[in-house]
């Protein structure tokens, strides 16, 4: 049998051409396909990192427990060991929690990491009787989290116009530094817009340069030539 579209000879009993998908007319209906491979599929590869991550988890739990016991015996309360345990928990969420999974899903783990940092800061704020969490720490961490997650999402799912996107991202990052200073002003009463002007200028100039480079093809190809790896 031959494929009427590609002109290649097909296996006996083939139902369609593997190249173009054109259905095959078979004069002998009872002819069965000759199979090149069996129908046995391999088991999905398991996550090879699990033993190492499990070991690290046990070690970190042991460290937390030791700190807690030492602290309880010395001070009769969790005191400093609570900070150590929370710190280790944040570290674990950021670096080791994703290792339990076969693939790293940044759109899930990055926001989770920022949420863990937020909780840690809330704990410190409540424990020290501070009033800086809701007006400063939370907006700052949330802003950084949104920018980081957004950047990852854009680079992951948008394949075109990356130079242009990077330019706008840099300008946005510069603009965010002004927002951070605004939060600082609202919380601590510091002078408005002093240090944030430097990142705004630096990121802004570099971002504008990238946008220009994207819009001027000769400049873009010159840069590609100079910096290609």
């Amino acid at each position, binding site marked *: 049998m031959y494929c009427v579209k*590609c*002109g290649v000879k097909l296996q006996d009993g083939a139902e369609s051409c*593997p*190249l173009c998908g054109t259905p095959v007319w078979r004069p002998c209906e009872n002819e069965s396909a000759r*199979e*090149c491979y069996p*129908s*046995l599929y391999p088991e999905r590869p398991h996550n090879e990192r699990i033993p190492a991550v499990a070991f690290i988890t046990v070690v970190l739990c042991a460290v937390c427990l030791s700190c807690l016991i030492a602290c309880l015996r010395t001070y009769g309360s969790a005191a400093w060991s609570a900070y150590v345990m929370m710190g280790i928990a944040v570290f674990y969420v950021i670096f080791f929690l994703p290792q339990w999974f*076969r*693939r790293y899903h940044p759109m899930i783990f990055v926001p989770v990491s920022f949420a863990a940092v937020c909780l840690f800061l809330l704990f410190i704020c409540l424990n020290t009787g501070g009033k800086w969490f809701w007006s400063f720490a939370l907006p700052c961490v949330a802003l950084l989290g949104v920018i980081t997650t957004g950047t990852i999402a854009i680079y992951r799912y948008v394949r075109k116009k990356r130079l242009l996107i990077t330019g706008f991202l840099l300008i946005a990052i510069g603009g965010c530094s002004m927002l951070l200073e605004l939060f600082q002003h609202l919380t601590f009463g510091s002078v408005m817009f002093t240090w944030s002007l430097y990142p705004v200028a630096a990121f802004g100039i570099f971002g504008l340069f990238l946008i220009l480079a994207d819009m001027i093809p000769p400049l873009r190809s010159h840069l590609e030539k100079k910096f290609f790896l």
Partner: protein
Amino acid sequence: MSRQWMPLDNAALIFPAIRRSTWVNTFRMAVTMPDDIDPVLLQRAVNDLRPRFPSIYVRLGAGLFWYFLEAVREPPKVRPDYAYPLTHMGGGELRVCCFRVLYYKRRMAVEFFHSLTDGTGGMIFIKTLAARYVDLRYGVRVPPEKGVLDIGKPPLPSELEDSFQRCSGEFAMSRAEENAWRLRGTPEPAGFLHQITGLADTDDLVRAAHAHNATVTAFVCAVMAQAIIGMQADEVPLKRQKPVKITIPVNLRNLFGGDTLRNFALVINPGVDPRLGSYTLDELCREFTHQMAVEITPQKMAARVAANVKPQNKAAMRLAPLFLKNMAMRMIYTFVGESKGCLNISNLGRVELPEAMQPFIKRFEFIIGVQYSYPNNCSIASCGEVTCISMIRNIEEPELERRFFSSLVELGVPIEIESNLKREA
């Protein structure tokens, strides 16, 4: 008693470093026999070959500074084949044995982790395995000739050497060259690989190649390049197009001699730039023939080898911990190694068999796995009158295969197509 071990050869160093949890660089050799394979006899043949191939019967181990290969505790168990070739060889499997022996109906296949050997070494191994199997199954003694080794003799030291160190030149050639266009498609989930094998009459293929004043490799590269140029033209406007280049492994044994059974091949990336104008098939054949002739000289290949060997021998590189080396090699490979070609075309050439063995080998297949970042690969092996052109892909669309095989048919090379069917797992 400690087991025999050996460091990885220069080309092999990269493969453990760049492997991912879902991808590893492997290739497959398969022979088809007249009758169904007897797994018990195949296992005996596998066991019998062990003393003759100490560089193949190894597992991958990790030291503080380098990976190493260590003799396996026992030969691998033969097992039934899977629904697709080159299923993932995970770290756990590599730590036990770096190759596997599979059987399905009349076919026996060996899949190698690329750190063990290259196509030539793999071909010698499977020829010797098939010869031993023929002896056990049919009682026909195959003489040790034409790539079949005498399993009664000990291995020669030259078969175990890292030949790259011997042929490395004084001057290291820069790896810098322009990136090639990257083929894309809808990724297949769960690691499934589509294999489409085009069976051609060897004489037809050689005749078509000679009609264009090219070798078979140059001719196949030209036809493939024409297919890729067409695909790029359909997807990308001319001013944003990139060069179309084919990665071709070169067997360095032909240039520098030696009979090592370990890796001794290096790649070149000939190609054309579609932005310069359109190319006829004759022009493409001429381009590939000339570029290959210019690149494949002992001097240039020695300089290319030096670019890989010199960093390996530097004190700073030697002293760097393994994880740092892995990170560096993975980065270099991602940016430099895989971006210079659209796909590999690995031509094993005409596979010669001892006369006593010829009635028992119906077909010889050679399949290379896909690379991490480009979805198609092609390998060719000729045995007797049949040439197997195996194309493998990890994407759904068979567009490249369709264009390539249709072109061959139009050029007067009748092609018979076989493929593995994807079923629900």
